[in-house]
Structure formats: structure tokens, C-alpha cells
């Protein structure tokens, strides 16, 4: 009977150990991913910022117009990105942290149960040892004493075991209630961001008078420009 109880316990605790690991990993990856996302956005802003600070802007009105429009777009996108990351921080990363913070208490409780189990087993063995011996007076006395010692320890173990067997599945199942809102929020935050991105860059593309060339055409244009430059004698033949 004890083995079955142990198996049940191991199974339930095992699931929670897995969940703990996955939660930790998710938290770490999510944080790193959002950090890289922020860095990307910042480096996009830098492109237009550096262009804006180039003296050519003072000389060339067309260039200035283009760079200003680009800069405005990049800055707006960065603001939206920051908002997205804030939302993710609030509704995904923080909750993950909170969820993870329950595990240390759980692990401590499991350790205490383990300790109680060890004590129980030890005292149980002692009782069994005396039970097998010839029933002399001293043996009886020792047996009685051993049983008295065993009783509260067994009760304690059973109490701990029951408590954990009750609480662990409940905690494990709570993940459903817990994670679903976070991830729904995550998807929505991204959709909001990319909608803005589509609008802002779509408008900018139109403003900059750039028709929707297919990639091959763009490649050809690049080749053409390179050839034009190379045709100049001051450009080194490569």
C-alpha cells in the first residue's frame, strides 16, 4: 500500500517539477526575447537619427524631407514597441515570476514530508524488529515504547502526505487559469503592435514615392546603380 501511495506522490510531484522547469525556462526566454526586441527597435531609430544629424540635411531639402519622415516613423514605432514590451512585462513576465515563487515553498514542504517518511520508516522498522523477537518482558517493554514513538511520527507523515496530495494537483491545475490570460494578452499585444507597424510603414512607403517592386526588380535596380558608379573612373574597379 505504501508503494502505491509513493507512486501517486511521485507522479504528482514529478508533474510539478516539470512545470517548475518549464516555467523557469519560459520566463528566461521571454525576458531575453523582449530585450532583443527592444534592442532591435533602438537600432532602427539610430539609423534615422544619425541620418538626421548629417550636414547633408541642411543642404538638400529632399533628403531632409525623406530623413525626417523616416525618423518620425521610427520613433513612433519605438514608442509602440516600448508599450508592447511593457504590456508583456506586466501580463506575462511578472505573473510567471509569481507563479515560480510558489515552488520553493512546495519543495520545502516535500522535503519535510520526505524527512517525516524517513523517520516513519525508521521507527516502523524498529517496531517490526521487536515484533519478530521472542516476547520477553524487556522486549515487550521496548516494543511498547517503540510503538508509542512510532504513532505520532506516522500520524505526522500521513498528515503531510495527505495535505500535499490534496494541494499539489490543485496547484498544478491552477496553471490553466493562470497562463491562459497571460498568453491571450501576449498575442493581442503583438497584433496591436504589428497593426501600427503596417500602417506607419505603409504610409511612409507611399509618401516616399516607392512603388511595390518585386524583389528581382529591386535587385536589378541595385545592380544598375552599382554599374553606374563603377563606370566612373574615380571608382576603383573591384
Amino acid at each position: 500500500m505504501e508503494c502505491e501511495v509513493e507512486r501517486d506522490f511521485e507522479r504528482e510531484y514529478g508533474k510539478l517539477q516539470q512545470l517548475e522547469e518549464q516555467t523557469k525556462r519560459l520566463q528566461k526566454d521571454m525576458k531575453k526575447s523582449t530585450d532583443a526586441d527592444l534592442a532591435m527597435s533602438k537600432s532602427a531609430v539610430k539609423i534615422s537619427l544619425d541620418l538626421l544629424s548629417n550636414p547633408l540635411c541642411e543642404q538638400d531639402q529632399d533628403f531632409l524631407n525623406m530623413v525626417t519622415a523616416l525618423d518620425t516613423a521610427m520613433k513612433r514605432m519605438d514608442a509602440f514597441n516600448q508599450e508592447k514590451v511593457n504590456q508583456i512585462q506586466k501580463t506575462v513576465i511578472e505573473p510567471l515570476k509569481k507563479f515560480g515563487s510558489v515552488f520553493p515553498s512546495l519543495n520545502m514542504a516535500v522535503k519535510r514530508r520526505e524527512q517525516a517518511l524517513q523517520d516513519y520508516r525508521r521507527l516502523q522498522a524498529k517496531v517490526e524488529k521487536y515484533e519478530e523477537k521472542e516476547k520477553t518482558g524487556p522486549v515487550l517493554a521496548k516494543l511498547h515504547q517503540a510503538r508509542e514513538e512510532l504513532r505520532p511520527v506516522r500520524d505526522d507523515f500521513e498528515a503531510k502526505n495527505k495535505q500535499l496530495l490534496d494541494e499539489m494537483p490543485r496547484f498544478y491545475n491552477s496553471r490553466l487559469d493562470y497562463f491562459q490570460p497571460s498568453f491571450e494578452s501576449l498575442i493581442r499585444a503583438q497584433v496591436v503592435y504589428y497593426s501600427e507597424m503596417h500602417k506607419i510603414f505603409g504610409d511612409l512607403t507611399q509618401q516616399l514615392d516607392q512603388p511595390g517592386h518585386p524583389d528581382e526588380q529591386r535587385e536589378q535596380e541595385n545592380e544598375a546603380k552599382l554599374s553606374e558608379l563603377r563606370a566612373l573612373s574615380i571608382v576603383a574597379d573591384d
Partner: protein
Amino acid sequence: TTLQSLQIKSLCRTPSDLPWLLCSLQLPQGDLDVLFSNIDDIVKVNSRFLHGLQETASREEDQVQLIGNLFLEFQEELEQVYKVYCASYDQALLLVDTYRKEPELQREIQGIIEAVVPQAGSSGLSFLLVIPLQRITKYPLLLQKILENTLPDASAYPVLQRATHALQDVNANINEYKRRKEVASKYTKVEQLTLRERLARINTHTLSKKTTRLSQLLKQEAGLVPRTEDKEFDDLEERFHWVSLCVKETKNNVAAYLDNLEAFLHFRPQECDLDVGGGPVVQYCSLTRDLQLQAFPEFKRRLEGLVWQPLCSLAKTLAGPQNLIKKRLDKLLDFERVEEKLLEVGSVSYEEEVARHTYQALNSMLVAELPQFNQLAMQWLRQILCTFVALQRDLAKQVLQRAEGSLAQLPHHHIPELAFRKLVEDALGQTSHQLHSFQKNFEKVLPPPTIQPLLPGAERQVQALLSRYGPGKLYQVTSNISGAGTLDLTLPRGQVVALLQNKDTKGNSSRWLVDTGGHRGYVPAGKLELYRVVPRDKELRGQAGPHEDSRHLTPEPTPVPVSSVPTMTQVVAVYPFLARSSHEVSLQAGQPVTVLEAQDKKGNPEWSLVEVDGQRGYVPSSFLARAPSPAPWGWSLPS
């Protein structure tokens, strides 16, 4: 006019054989490019030109005029197409020389030439290659001849004259272009020299050149010598400098962007497994997985091909002009020295003449081409930036397309964003409370019991103490106490007592006054531990054994009026006891005793009258235990 027709006929001979040669020669493509340059383009232009000439043949009167017009029409194209060929002609000749050094290759080439172009005879490759050159230089000469044979008052004369000048210009331009290319190729190459190689290059000549330049520069800096101010050039150079800065910074920034993009794609939170069957978690994981498989890699690829690569190419083209500008400055210093010398001395050496000309060539080349360069570079940069923007828009579009499906399946997709955010906040607040309670529960999982096993028969005593003093005052003995003085108690391990005072009359706080329920006395405080009252039912369960036995062992129908402990039962001493008076008897642990009376003369159940080893006396009742089963000890048991 016969002369004219002669000239015209010679005009019509076009070198169209060379392309055939191209295909036949088994040479590497790079070599063929060098040898034959843009011969295809020349052939194209020439064939059209020839066609035009042939058409004029039918119009006898106007022929000369038409020819003139034709030349003027083709002037630009001829210049463009021949200048490239002429500029690379020298390199082609070099290559032909290297072939000559390999006799077998040379024979092969010769064989092919004779097969494909029989009229070339036994002449070599170089003969064939020079033909286009000869052609273009011949045009102005031919035209000149025709002009000489035309009457000045003929209607065709002015046109012809213009055509002649035009072709002369073409040749002049071609020469100029060739010269510039030569100068440029000498100085535009960014040479990757090792330090050793650089040191090896230093000789007295170069040293003197450099020191002369340096001294010239210093003189200028010190104001001793006027610096040649060339505002036009300076402006151009400044603009070029800004254009370079633009290109380089943009290239670096795009590089940083690509690095960050790669880092972003490196982390995959969607790979976590939370053991959730469906819902937003699964939606998110599949959405992110799909995006990372397709939309983002495509974005990255397009960025690299359509933004990064072009920026790299553009940045590379900066090197040429940069070098030339540097060289120009060097040559300018030389030039100024030479000018000074010219003023002082009146004449200069050949080398100094060359230096002068080099500077002038560099200068005019830069002045002519830098504006073009700047403009082209900026146009290209603008193009690249527009592409960057378009790629971002395309990425957003792709993401949205894919996300639409996931969004529609979310439980709250119909709720607007602000309302949804409030909803999530509330939900998370609730679950946060729930988590907190889980945490508290886990922390509460009972710590180890401090309770010691209760001595048999003692629960009544404990209850008595409990009701008299309350649970907070009860303590349990942790190890056997042997009292020394008259006021000290002797107590076994496990006995429960009630605390009366936590110090003795002298104020010693390690000696406590306690009540056992029958006796009062002092015990060492270190051997006492706060006693936690165990709930009744457990106690009962725990005591089930002995109770069962007691039921078993008390068959008497009439209940014993005083105690529930049956007389004449088999009992065992659980702990050793040292008799302190003649009323008491000593016990050894495990010794079987016979209980004669379970109370003393005063009726105190704490003491029992027992017989052991033939001796009778009182022992503490709590030191005794009932035998758990009616063991066959050979003692008579009540029937």
C-alpha cells in the same frame, strides 16, 4: 565623288568577326572579358550605324549630308561605346603578351584564328584586337577627307564640318577618358600591404617626395606660403565627406539591426511545454513557431540581400574617390613646389612636369566626376532606405496575416483592447491571490512533531492537569529525572507535568516548580519541553491497544469501584526505578511485576503497590506497562 565613295566603302567594313572568335577561344571567362571588353556593344552600335550608312547609299544627292547627320546622330553612342573598349585595350594587350609566353596556348589560339577568321592571315590576336581602335580613329580622318573633297558652298558642307569636329571631339574625349582611367587605376587601388612591404617601398626617392610634401604642408600651415585655395573643390570634397559619413553610418547601423534581429530569433519561448491542451497558450506557441519559420527568416533574407549587400557595395565604392582625394592633396603639394620653382628658376625637370600634370589630371577628374558620384551615391542610398521601409511593411503584413487566424480563436477577441486589458488585470489579480494562498498552504505543511510518546495510563492524569491549569502550562519530561534533594522529583521520560513556577525560591530559573497531579517538586528546566496536547481521538486510537487488553483482562462482571486498572494483571516495568524508602521497591526495565493495588493508601493512583522479585512496595504507576497480549508467561491469569 569617287573618292567619297571609296571612303564610304571603307567605312562599311565592320569588324564583326571578333565575336565569333570569342566563342571559339577556350579561355577563362575573366580573360575573355579583358580581351574583348564590350565588343558586343560595339558590334550592336556598328551594325545600326552600318545600316544607316547603307540607307544613305540609295539617296545619291543628299548622301553626304545624310552621312554627316548620321555621324552627328551617333556621336554620343560611339563615344560611350568605344571609350570603354579603348580604356581596357592596354590590359588586353598585356594579356595577349602572357599568352605569347606559352607556346602551346599560342599555337592553339593561332589555329583557331586561322580557322575562324581566314582573312586575318597569320597575324596574331593583337592585330585583331586593335581593329576597333583603328576604326574609331579613322572616322575623323575619313570625314576630313570627304570634307576636303566637298565644295564649301554645298548644302552638305556645314553638316559635314560639324560631323568632322564631332568625331574629333569623340577621339579627344576617348583619349582623355583613357588617361583618367590610367591615373585613377594607379591611385584608387586600396593596397593591402603588410608593414614589411610598406617599409620595403621606402627608398630615397619616396622619402624625398614625402618630406618635400610635408615641408610644403608645414609652410602652408605656418602661413609662409599661400595655399592653393580651390573653393569649388573644397565644397565638393566636403560634400563627398558627408556622403561617405552617411553611407558608413547607415551601413554600421543596419549591421547592428541585423545582429539584434538574429539575437531576437535566437530565443524561442514558444518551445516551452506547460502541458496545456489548448487555448491561448497553444495559439501563441503555434503562431510564434510559424512566424519564426517563415515570416522572420524571409524578412532577414530580404534585408540582407536588398539592404545590407547594396550598402556594402556602396561603401566599397567610396574607397576609390577617397584615395584619389588623398593623392590629389599630395600631388597638389608637389604641384605647388613646382610652381614655386618655376617662378624662381624659370624651368623645371621632366619629373616635376609629370608631377604637375598628374595633379592637374587628378584634379580635373575629381572635379568632373565627384558631383556625379555624390549624386549617384545619395540616390542609391535613398533607394536602399525606401526598400528598408518597404520590407518592414511587408513583414508587418505577413505577421498580421498569420496572426489573424490565432486572434479569431481567442476567447475575448470580440472585446476591445482597453476593456480587455482591464479584464486581464483583474484576472491576474485574482489568480495572484490564489497563488499566495497556495504558497501559504505549502509553508503550513506541519513541521515535525515535538510531541513525545505518552506514557500509558497517563492520559487521565494529563486531562486532570489540563482541566486544572490549561494547555499552556503543560510540559513533558524529555529524559528521566532522578531527584536528589527532598523537594526534587523523580520523573520518567514522557511524564506530563504542569508548571507552577519557572524558578526556585533562590531565584534559580533552571529549576522549576511543577505539579505532577499528585506531587509537587522541583525538576531541572532543561529536561522539560512544552507539551502539545494531542487531540482526543488520536489519543484514544493510540490507547486502543491497552484498552482492548484491559477489556480483555477484566472479565469480572462487577466493575471494580475505584480504578479501571484490573488487579492481578500481568504488568511490566517499562523504566528503572530506584526505591528511596522502605515503602518503595526498586524496578528494572522490563521486569515483570505483579500489581497488587493500583493506588496508594491515600487512594492516589499515581502509585501502585506491586510485588517484584518477592518484594513488595510502591512504585510510580506511570513506570508500569500492561502486557500487550496475554502472553504465556506461566503466570496465572484470571479466567
